[in-house]
């Protein structure tokens, strides 16, 4: 076999059942302040790079919801001419079509996006030296010199507005918007892009938001068929056209307030003519840095994260046939992302489904999992661990998480042990701390009033 590198260590780790070898994440800080996380994976001649910044939705003004996302999306709509003295194969200004042609010709791809926390840029390229060098140069130009053309933004605003109006005719959108507003209140995690918020966004706002895109704030994750030296040079080039900070140091960004807990249960029953009622039940959850993270992960598997075998799926789908899918999930981030149970059912069955969900939830929070359920959860999570990291793309997601949340470099090596040590009593206690079944948000869109 040519090379298994990172994966060979993984094979060893698992075949012995103990952490005999580690997944070799290399980490260093560049003079620009950029932090690099790198795993060498040489067997396919390709590389994936992700560059992330603290410039997501939580850092956009309240009346400009969607700014982070449209800013990231506009970076592929053209680049300005390179600054004087900047040479390289792509020195000229490129409009959106010249830019997309250039990427297509390289057989590579580069694009931006934003979540509530992060603004992210991803590059995927083959690793033949000339090809990769060009792809890194072009990515660097796109990252460093986006043009943000006003006419293109006007067009994109119209397109987005039209698609928002279309989405608003669907029960899932209506439910999601109502739910986010009730769970998050005024917190930026509850920001929902609307026609109104898009009207408030100009290209000047984008340029303003883009000031957060600085090398000293970059978390860069790389998985692929390159050496550490190559990876280091790639990152330096990628970030070279962004404004450098003095000695690679950035000042701290202003603190973002935390999500406020709910003061009382909130219920919204929204009439809607649809084939199914959409139900969302939940509340603010917990932050990714919470010490209960693993306990909640294990516990939620039993409640509603573990597919067909979960309690929610058993009671709502498998026993009663009320829905195609029901699940519960947490969304921990820099702030307390929501705990959410979601399902869809025939309008006349909504009340019954809500009742069953509430009973399952209350009982689980009061009693926690049985020993048999705890074992089933651990068997699946521990046994299935290699499935979390068995491709470059999945490994990259994990490395990027380690980078983003400043998790220890041996995080993946100790993951199984962390899951293993969770007890049923831990789950019960942590769920009781995190969830208040009597004080949740319930949104029901499109239910019939009374069955029969």
């Amino acid at each position: 076999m040519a090379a298994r590198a990172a994966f060979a260590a993984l094979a060893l780790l698992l075949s012995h059942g103990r952490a005999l070898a580690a997944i070799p994440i290399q980490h260093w800080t560049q003079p620009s302040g950029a932090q690099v996380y790198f795993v060498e994976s040489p067997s396919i001649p390709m590389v994936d790079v992700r560059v992330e910044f603290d410039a997501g939705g939580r850092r956009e003004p309240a009346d400009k919801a969607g700014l982070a996302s449209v800013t990231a999306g506009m970076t592929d709509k053209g680049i300005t001419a390179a600054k004087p003295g900047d040479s390289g194969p792509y020195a000229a200004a490129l409009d959106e079509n010249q830019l997309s042609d250039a990427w297509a010709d390289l057989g590579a791809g580069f694009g931006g996006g934003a979540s509530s926390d992060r603004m992210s840029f991803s590059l995927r390229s083959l690793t033949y030296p000339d090809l990769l060098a060009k792809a890194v140069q072009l990515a660097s130009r796109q990252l460093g010199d986006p043009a943000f053309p006003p006419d293109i933004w006007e067009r994109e605003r119209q397109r987005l507005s039209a698609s928002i109006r279309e989405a608003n005719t669907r029960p899932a959108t209506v439910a999601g918007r109502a739910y986010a507003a009730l769970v998050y209140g005024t917190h930026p995690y509850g920001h929902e892009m609307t026609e109104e918020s898009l009207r408030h966004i100009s290209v000047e706002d984008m340029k303003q938001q883009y000031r957060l895109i600085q090398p000293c704030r970059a978390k860069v994750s790389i998985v692929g068929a390159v050496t550490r030296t190559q990876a280091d040079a790639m990152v330096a080039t990628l970030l070279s056209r962004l404004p450098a900070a003095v000695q690679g140091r950035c000042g701290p960004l202003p603190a973002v307030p935390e999500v406020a807990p709910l003061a009382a249960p909130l219920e919204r029953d929204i009439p809607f003519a649809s084939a199914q009622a959409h139900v969302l039940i939940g509340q603010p959850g917990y932050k990714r840095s919470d010490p209960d993270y693993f306990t909640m992960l294990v516990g939620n598997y039993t409640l509603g994260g573990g597919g067909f075998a979960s309690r929610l799926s058993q009671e709502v789908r498998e026993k009663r046939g009320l829905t195609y899918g029901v699940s519960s999930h947490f969304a921990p981030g820099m702030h307390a992302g929501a705990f959410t149970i979601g399902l869809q059912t025939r309008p006349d069955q909504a009340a019954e489904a809500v009742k069953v969900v509430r009973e399952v939830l209350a009982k689980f929070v009061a009693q926690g999992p049985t020993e048999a359920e705890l074992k089933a959860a651990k068997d699946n999570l521990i046994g299935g661990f290699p499935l979390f990291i068995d491709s470059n793309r999945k490994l990259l997601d994990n490395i990027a998480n380690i980078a983003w949340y400043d998790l220890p470099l041996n995080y993946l090596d100790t993951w199984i042990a962390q899951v293993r040590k969770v007890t049923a009593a831990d789950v019960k206690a942590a769920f009781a701390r995190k969830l208040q079944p009597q004080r949740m948000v319930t949104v029901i869109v499109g239910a019939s009033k009374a069955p029969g």
Partner: protein
Amino acid sequence: MKHLLQSCLRSLCLFLALPFALQAFAQTQSNSPKAEQFKLDNGFTVIVKPDHRAPTAVQMVWVRVGSVDEVDGSSGLAHILEHMMFRGTRDLKPGEFSRRVAALGGRENAFTQRDNTGFYQQIPAGKLEDVMKLEADRFAHNQWPDAEFKREIEVVKEERRLRTEDSPRALMWEALNAAVFEASPYRRPVVGWMSDLQSMTPQDARDFYQRWYVPANAVVVIAGDVDPAQVRRLAQKYYGSIAARPVPPRKPRTEPAQVGVRRIEFKAPAEQSYVALAFKVPRVTSFDPSPDNDDALALTVLAAVLDGYSGARLERALTQGSDRLADSAGASNGLWGRGPQLFTLDGVPAPGKTTEQLEAALRAEVAKVARDGVTEAELNRVKTQWIAGEVYKLDSVMNQARELGSYWIEGLPLDAGERLIQRLRGVSAEQVKAVAAKYFGDDQLTVGVLRPQPLDPNRKPRTPPPGVRPSEGLQ
């Protein structure tokens, strides 16, 4: 001057990228272990694709039965049977299959399409034998009480409501397919008409299972960190012991030639209108040169030139500029399948524009190719995309298994992916121009238009159709 510089820049890239992509492609082809295929004595086909990068494996069983094998009044049968395959065997209680896969650390699911039904598990490589035993058992011994069916059919109705009935475009496509095809069973939705689901019985599903789940009608694909010799032994042990039965004959139900344009109008609560144009076109049945095979391949290149990468022709011509016609526009070619194939053009008109304008503009873009042809730069660009894509594809063992299974379903060889790329590389600009001129007249065309209706805030929520009992718990 700037323009000249740009085009030099582009041709330089082309000159470099295509050979490098090809080199990467060739390298990965020669480096990665080849897939093997063999048949057990009872007719069950086995495909093994080793990939030792990580200690995980995928098992996929594909059965050559899908909605295309259903008859009127029984639409959705292949799909409900897929659901019932999780509801027990001679030895396993309902739901026990999933519990065991989960306990092995596995992830699993299943899917039903027009041409096939598939079941898969992703597992740590050391658990391969366990899931092969489980999957062979349910293929051979699926059984369940009527009550399981009665509850599961309600789940399927919810699935239909979720995926189709609350999606205006899905509803329009359902209606459009019913208009495009007359004799071909492709005219029926995979999930089934609601009335057929209402009247379906447990015995219907059992009969369908008995009829189609026979060894010679199925393939098991194993990919990942596995040893082919061991897979062969395990396949023989678990799948080889299933009794051989003949594959039932299939009626051709050949679609008659369409001789005139068809149109449907579909009204649904929505904000945006939408238009789709479906042209009947030939399909690839092998990689041998033949007029139909060659044309089907050229049509796939045409679809890619129109819509195969960001900023391709349709996007550029229809969704940009101050007087743009569309918010989105797309093209795709069916290429292969067990039934007749379509080339589709579709799009969402921009605010203030009509579906009629967009329909004319989409056809004008094809006419432009028929008149002026395509450039070598465009051709090379789409080929570079495909070839690089072949390398990126190798990152997912799951995708490799999926492709190998789908090739078998269509009666294509193991190396269909590689041969497809070779054949597409051979398509000339002249051929693309020729198919653009040949297949886009009125006679083979069916047009579907979605006419958005306002949401009525006073409209009463829907009530269940008469005769539907409230679902019952089973405990």
